[in-house]
C-alpha cells in the first residue's frame, strides 16, 4: 500500500525543479515583421534618394538644351584672329591707296625757244 500510495503521490503531486530555468522574454511577432520590412525598404529609399539627387544635377542640362532656341541670349560675336588680320591688311591697303599721291608737277620746260 505504501508503494501504491507513493506511486499515487508521485503521480498527483507535481515535481518541483529546484533550479527553474529563467523565463524566456516574450517577443511581439508584429514588431518583428515591421523590422524586416524596414530593413528591406531602407536600401530602396537610399537608392530613390540617390536618384532624386542625381536628377537635380542632370535635369538642368537637359532643359538648357531644349530651351536654347526659345531663349534669346544676347551675345557679342568675337571676331577671330584671321579676320582681324585680314581687317588690318585691308585697312593698310586703303591707307596705301590714300597715301599714294600721284600729282606730278608740270614739266619744267622753257617757254622761250626762239631766235
Amino acid at each position: 500500500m505504501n508503494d501504491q500510495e507513493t506511486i499515487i503521490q508521485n503521480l498527483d503531486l507535481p515535481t518541483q525543479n529546484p533550479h527553474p530555468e529563467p523565463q524566456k522574454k516574450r517577443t511581439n511577432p508584429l514588431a518583428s515583421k515591421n523590422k524586416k520590412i524596414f530593413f528591406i525598404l531602407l536600401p530602396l529609399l537610399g537608392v530613390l534618394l540617390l536618384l532624386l539627387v542625381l536628377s537635380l544635377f542632370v535635369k538642368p542640362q537637359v532643359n538648357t538644351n531644349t530651351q536654347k532656341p526659345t531663349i534669346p541670349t544676347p551675345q557679342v560675336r568675337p571676331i577671330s584672329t584671321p579676320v582681324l588680320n585680314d581687317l588690318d591688311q585691308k585697312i593698310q591697303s586703303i591707307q596705301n591707296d590714300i597715301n599714294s599721291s600721284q600729282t606730278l608737277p608740270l614739266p619744267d620746260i622753257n617757254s622761250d625757244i626762239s631766235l
Partner: protein
Amino acid sequence: MPLFINILLLLNSIFHISPVFAQNTKLKSDYNYSFSIYQQTYSQFQQSRQAYLKFSTLNTQEAAVPDARKAQLARLETVKTYLYLQKDSLSTHQISSPTETEIILQNINQKIEAFDQLSKTTSSITSIEQINQNNDSFNTLYEETKELIIQAQIRSQANRLLETLKQISQLLDSLNQGPIPNPAKQSWITQTKKDLEKANQEINSALQAPLLKKVKNNPYQKNLKDSLEYLNQSQETQQKILKNALEIKNLL
C-alpha cells in the same frame, strides 16, 4: 563671311589693277626719257643761240635753227608724254564719276592731237621766222593745256579718294553686320558715318569751288592749291577713320 568676300574682292581689284601699274611705270619712264632729251637739246640750243646772238653769221644761224627745232620737238614730246601719263592716271580711277572723267579724257586726247600736229609742223621748219612763230603757237596751246592738266589732276585725285571712301564704306558695312553691336562699336559706326559724309563733302568742294572762281594772276596755281587743300582734308579725314578702326577693332 561678308568681310571675307570683301577682302577677296579687294585682293581681286588689286591684282586687276596691277597691269595698269605696269603701264603707268612705262609711261613714267617714257616721260622721264623725253624730259632728259629735252634738257640735252635745250642745253645745246642755248649754246647755239648765244653764238648766233653774238656773231650773227650765216654759219651760226645755220647751226642755231636746227638746234632750236630739235629743242622745240623735244619740248613737244615732253608735254605729250606728260599728257599720256595724266590720261593714264585719270583712267585708273574713273569709276566714281565716269561722265566728268570722260570729258576731261576727250579734251586731253584733243590736246595730244594738237601737239602732234604742231610736232609735224615743227619737224619741217627751216627759218628763224618759223622757229619764232612755232614757239608762239606752242605757248598758246600750252597755256590752254595747263588748265586742262590741273582739271585732270584734281579729278584724278578726287576719284582716287572717292574710291578709297567707297572701300571704307564697304568696310563699315561689313563690320556693321555683327549680331548685336556693343556700345563702343555702335559709337564708332555713328562717328564713322559722320566722318564719311565729311570726307565726301571735302571732295565735292575740291571739285567745284576752286574751278568756279578765276583768279587773274596765276589762276592755275591758285586753283590747284585750293583744290589740293580740300583733297588733303578729305585724305586726313579718311586716315582718321582708318586709325580709329584699327584702335577699335579689338572691341568689335
